[in-house]
Each structure stands twice: as structure tokens, then as C-alpha cells.
């Protein structure tokens, strides 16, 4: 994953810090919070810079978040699991949902943000309707997956981790899916495609 995907850029400082942010550590939000910018406004501004066709956080049904929170509450641990469940439902972590979890679980928003930006599975931007993941594990790399990613990036005019302007496709890379024996491998919407070539990859994208 590109570093840009892991640590989304957050605009420069504004306003006072309203939340506890000691735990944000090295994250960009932590830095911004130290500069005096509130995390919630950092998150809000982050989402304002999204792809125009996908309205961020549109139609958040708090009943869904609340039900997932209830499931986790009282378990002692499972905050990451809760974020995974929420992320699975929305295909990303909407800021409204993070706020809600923060209130309901009595956890500082900064801690949720630290987790959400540290682990690569969490996305803070809405994802495309289709998801093409190219494996860049060593075996796939040796068999030419990097060249395939380059071709796709050029064709789609995207960087790995980005979504097309029309919200159709997110192109991502993964460190290893574990199908090293039949690489290069791609996963399109959960379906595996083995022994990939640049040509096959272009065809895959065209079918969408």
C-alpha cells in the first residue's frame, strides 16, 4: 500500500483542540492535533476532499453502528474487531460512524483514528463499487506484477489505493494474498485470477 493511503493528508491547522489526543502517537492526526487542530475538524476536512460523486457518509444508519457496538460491548476487548465490522458494512470507516463509536464506547476519537490510520485494512475514503487488488508479494513481483500495476495505473490514471472519479473502481495492491504458487495474482471483488499478465489485467478492467 502506498504511504499516502495509510496516512491521508490533513489540511493545515485551525481552531482549538477539543479532544484527548495523547494516544494518536505518530499519526498525521496526532501531529495536527498538537498543532492545535481538532481531530474532528481534521476528519471532516479530510472527507471534504473526496471523490465528488460519492457523498461521504451519505445515509449513515446509526442503528447498524449501534447494533455492532452492542455486540462488542462488555467483551473486554474487540475495538479493532468493531472497526472491522463497521468497515465491512460500509466498505470504509465513515467519520460519522467513528464519532458514534467514540461516544458509545467511551473511547477517545483520537484512539480510533490512530487505529484506523495504522492498520492498512481500514480506509477513511469511500471505496469504489469494484475493487481490484494486485498482489505484489515477492513471488508475484519476481514474475512481473509490478509491471502490471504500472500498466493499470497508467490506463486508469490512478495510483494504487485510489478510486476512479466515477466511483467505479478502486485499484489497490496487497503485500501477499498467499497464492504464491500461481502468481502473479489479482483479486477482483473477492474472486481470484491467477497467472496474470498486463494484457489479462487490462481485459479484467474493461469488463467492469
Amino acid at each position: 500500500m502506498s504511504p499516502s493511503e495509510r496516512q491521508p493528508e490533513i489540511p493545515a491547522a485551525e481552531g482549538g483542540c477539543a479532544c484527548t489526543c495523547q494516544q494518536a502517537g505518530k499519526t498525521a492526526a496526532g501531529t495536527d492535533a498538537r498543532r492545535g487542530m481538532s481531530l474532528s475538524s481534521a476528519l471532516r476536512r479530510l472527507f471534504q476532499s473526496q471523490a465528488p460523486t460519492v457523498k461521504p457518509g451519505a445515509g449513515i444508519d446509526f442503528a447498524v453502528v449501534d447494533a455492532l457496538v452492542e455486540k462488542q460491548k462488555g467483551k473486554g476487548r474487540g475495538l479493532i474487531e468493531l472497526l472491522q465490522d463497521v468497515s465491512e458494512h460500509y466498505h470504509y470507516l465513515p467519520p460519522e460512524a467513528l464519532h458514534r463509536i467514540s461516544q458509545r464506547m467511551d473511547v477517545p476519537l483520537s484512539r480510533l483514528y490512530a487505529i484506523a490510520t495504522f492498520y492498512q485494512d481500514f480506509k477513511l475514503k469511500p471505496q469504489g463499487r469494484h475493487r481490484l487488488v494486485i498482489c505484489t508479494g515477492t513471488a508475484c513481483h519476481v514474475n512481473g506484477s509490478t509491471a502490471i500495476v504500472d500498466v493499470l495505473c497508467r490506463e486508469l490514471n490512478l495510483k494504487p489505493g485510489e478510486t476512479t472519479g466515477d466511483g467505479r473502481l478502486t485499484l489497490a495492491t496487497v503485500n501477499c494474498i498467499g497464492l504464491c504458487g500461481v502468481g502473479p495474482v489479482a483479486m477482483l471483488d473477492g474472486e481470484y485470477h491467477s497467472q496474470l499478465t498486463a494484457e489479462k489485467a487490462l481485459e479484467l478492467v474493461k469488463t467492469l
Partner: protein
Amino acid sequence: MNTLTDRESIALHRERVVAREAGKIRIFVAGGTCGCAAGAGGVKDALYQELERRGLLAKTSLKITGCHGFCTMEPMVLIARDGCLRIMYRHVRAEDAAEIVEQSVCDTRIVERLVYTDPESGEKISEQERVPFFRLQTRRILDWNDHIDPLEIDDYIALGGYVALANALGMPSGSVIETLSRAGLRGRGGAGFPTAVKWTLARGAVEQNAKAGVESAACYIVCNADEGDPGAYMDRSILEGNPHSVLEGMVIGAHAVAGGLACVQKGYVYVRAEYPMAIRHLSRALTQARELGLLGENILGSGLSFDIEIVKGAGAFVCGEETALLESIEDRIGEPRPKPPFPVISGLWNWPTVLNNVKTWASCRYILDKGAEEFAAVGTDGSKGTMVFALVGKVRNSGLIEVPLGITLRDIVEKIGHGVCDGGHAKAVQTGGPSGGCLPASKFDMPVDYSSLAEAGTIMGSGGMIIMDEQTCMVDTARYFLNFAVNESCGKCTPCREGVRHMHDILVEITAGRGRPEHLDMLDRMGRMIIKLSFCGLGKTAPNPVISTLRYFREEYEAHLAGKCPAKVCTALIQYTILETCKGCGVCLRKCPVGAISGSPRELHRIDPEQCTKCGICRKACKFAAIEVN
């Protein structure tokens, strides 16, 4: 399902299961993630329909199993009859089902065209045991993968599963650890720490807590299945194909570390979220083990109470480091903790915690089942037993192999792997993933064990073994691994966060043709410094790929400094040109994704170097080998 209440009931249950299946012809379809990606599901459905049509369902037992290991031959089907060697069919398609059933199930004939053919002698080999890929292995952890429907605990018990647990529970905890010590088992996650020592330290800590009467004392047993090393997938395969072997090992561990002592015990399996099938099979295995009373309160009447929970990773390579993994289970970001205290003394929520790799747990099961002597019968003095490797990259037979430690790299690459694809030569073997190094062909006769690999500048790691040929650029490989480390560094300590990034930037310069002679010494110096100063294993090993390639492939670095990439991989240093032999067929022109090729039909075509992105599609497409790369 009846709960098993004592140790003897395992054997009785096994007899019942074996009697139920006796005399049936058994058909196994390899259905790990790779098998399924190749179409194993369709093959199984077709076989089922054919058996049903012929009224053979009662006489046969059709199972979809985990991965058999021979990934290049997927989808594979095995047919086993009592008293016969197993027939192995490879590259099976759904359309072949009728013929397979007619020839090999109704009759004892063989479908010749689906049988493995030795690429050199041309001999058709129908029995799995005789195929060189399998014949040269010592499969102890992987062999049950061939016969078990991972969703059925009875399949596992039928082969002798949970016998090891019954054995262990019949021994005092100390004897279990002593057995592991005699076996000489070392951690299979990479570092090779002696498992018995780890368990003894943990037991000491638990005993101390018990003696001091610490209130609500706890102890944790953790399985590290966060297999993040790119190029390694054996842990996935074991969890998918034989999850009970890991669970059984963990219950044995719980008994050994805290059996008979007053403390709450709990197990966690930390598994990558990228492995959905492993997670599915593991949770089913947990449910079934609980139903049979092999997990939960008072396991097999021994007084041991222990249960296991799955924790899904969220995509952070550093969480494979033990203390970072513990942080992640505790719902924090995966930044490693300072050591000491080591997790065996103060791990999860500051309680003694034993953390071992998937293969280590599965090996514990084997040792308690077959005995320490049997385990130690293969291997070398310092490295006993077998190791599972993922043999991948530019090798003809790629897949998962289990070999005795001490085997030579040459045997692995040439005999099991059958050499390099397309008749090339193996230039290097990379072991240990981003923490390991690359070994040149001149080292292929050295034995594969913990100490020899360390001396040669690499590590065993979790078992990734990537074969590289002349078309693999070693500088690019080093850059690739450092790029990985840069992205995966948690950022806690400066040498790893900043140092590795600087090394990466230098390698980018070199691969882009902007390298300077002093860069090579800088890389070596920085690498050694980062190894000394980094906080955790990630940083301490991240420079290894650079240092080992500098040691063995310095001439490739020097070629890059002179503006040449010998493997023709680094795009800034190569150029595609069309030779005079071009027939003007136009295939390359149509295939080029950026329109960089021009030319009229039946005339010599031309590549515009300004537009060419060096993706290589044209060269692969050209039927006349008229496109050259320099």
C-alpha cells in the same frame, strides 16, 4: 455429538468413525484457496453429480480437502482404495469427472492424460507417492492435508487426531516440556528459539504467580498466524487444510505451561484477515472441538479448562513481531514493546504468554503423538525435524514442500522444484522474506538449517523460498524488500523509520541509473548501523536483503552504476527496439497499451522510446521474437 469425557473415549470415537468409512473408495479434491482459484469447487460438484448418477454415493466418500502442496498442478484429485497407492490426477477440469469415475472408481484403470508426466523421462506417474515432488519430501505436518475435510473433526480423529492431546494429558506438565526438549524443537516462525525453553520460562512465571497467590492470575497461549512475509503461505495452508492440528498443539501447550496451577487460561489465534478461508475453517474447527469437549471446561476429564478465540489481523506486517501482535490483540496500534520483560514473563495484559507459530504448534502435536525420537530422527544436530517451505518464484514445480532440515538447497531447487521455468538457470534463492537474504548458486550445496543459513547471511524465516533466475534483478529485489519495509515500519524507532527509508532512496537512485560509486559503501554502513540500533526484529533485519545482495551480487550493483541492468528489469536502464526480422504483422501495435508502436502492415515497425513504458506486452506478443530489450 457425544462429548468425550476421558482420554480413552478418543480411541473409541476413532474406532466408530473408521468403521463408518471402512471399505469405501475415497476421492479427495484439493481445495485450498489456490485449488479453489483454479476451479476445484466445480470439479467436486461434477464428481458428485457423476457419483450420484451412477448410484455410487454410498460406496464412495468424496471430500474437498485443503491444499496438497503442488500448486502448479491444481486442481488435483486423489483416489484412494484400501491397500493401493493413491492415484493422483492433475489439472482436472469439471468435464473430466465422468471419465475419472468410469475408469478409476467403477474400475481400477487410470486416465492416462490426467496423470503427472515426468518432464525429463516422459514417464507417466500415476501414484502420488512416486511423483518426485512428493517422493523427496518428508511430510509430517502437511500429509494429513491430503485426507481431511477440514470442516469435519471426525476426519481428523480418524487419522489419529487428538491422540497427542490424550497422551499429553496423561503426563505431568513437566514431562511434556521435557519431551519437546528431547525432540529439539525450535520455533518455526523464523528466529528458531527452542520451544521447550520458552515453555519452561513461562511455566516458571505461572508457578511464581500461583505461589504468591496473585489474585485472578492468568496465562495466555497465542498462535501467531499473521503470516505477512510475502512469498510464504504455509501457515495459511495448514490452517485451511488441518486447523485441528494447530488447536491440538495449543491445548497441549496450555496443559504444559499451566496444567495443575491456579490460573485462568485462554488461547488466541491471531490470523491475517487476508485469509478468509483459514478463518472460516478455524472457527468451524473451534465449534466442533467445543462440541466434543476438546475445548472448554475440564478437557477429557483432566481438570484443564481452556478455550481459544480467533483475532483477525487488520493488515500490518509488523504485527507478526510477537510484542506488536500482543499490542494488537489488546486493541492498540501494533507498535512493539521493549524486551525484557519477555512475553513469557509479561505478555498479554502483563500475564505470562506463550506465543508460537502455526507450524510450531502443529509440530508439538506430532511430537506428542509419535514421540521425541521419531521427530528428531531427521534433521541436523542443531536443527531437528522437518520444515515447511513455500517453494515459489521462477521454479517449475512450485508449491508447499516439507523437507528434513539439513537438505541441500540444490536438492530442493533441482530435484523437488525441478529447476527453473523455461529452461533458465537458478541465479539465487531468497529465504526469510523481507528479513532474509539472497543466496547465490555457489551456495546451493550448503545444508538448509538455522545455523548454516545465518552464517551465509540469511535466515530460515517463516519458510518462504523464492527462486530467482537471470531475469531477476538483484538490485531491484533489494529495492523491492526495502520498499516493503518502508511501508511496513511502524515508525516507533528512528533507525528503522528514517534509516531504511534513506537506504531505499539510494536504491531507487541506483535502479534509476543515478547511482554513484560511494553509494554501495553507504548502503553497507547504514545497513549495519540499522541492524544494531533498531528496536524490534523488523528493523533489525530489514537491511538483510541489501547486505546479502551486496555481498554476493556486487557486480550487479556495479553494472547499474555503469548504466546497465543485466537482468533487464530496471525500466530506466533498458530500451525496447524492434529488429529487422519484424514481419509487420501489427500484433505489437494493437497490443501496446500506450500507442508507442507505429508502422504500416508488412513493414518494419518502430517503437517510440519517448512513449514506451517498457511494460513488455509487445515482446511477449511477438511471434517472431523480433522485439529486443537492451
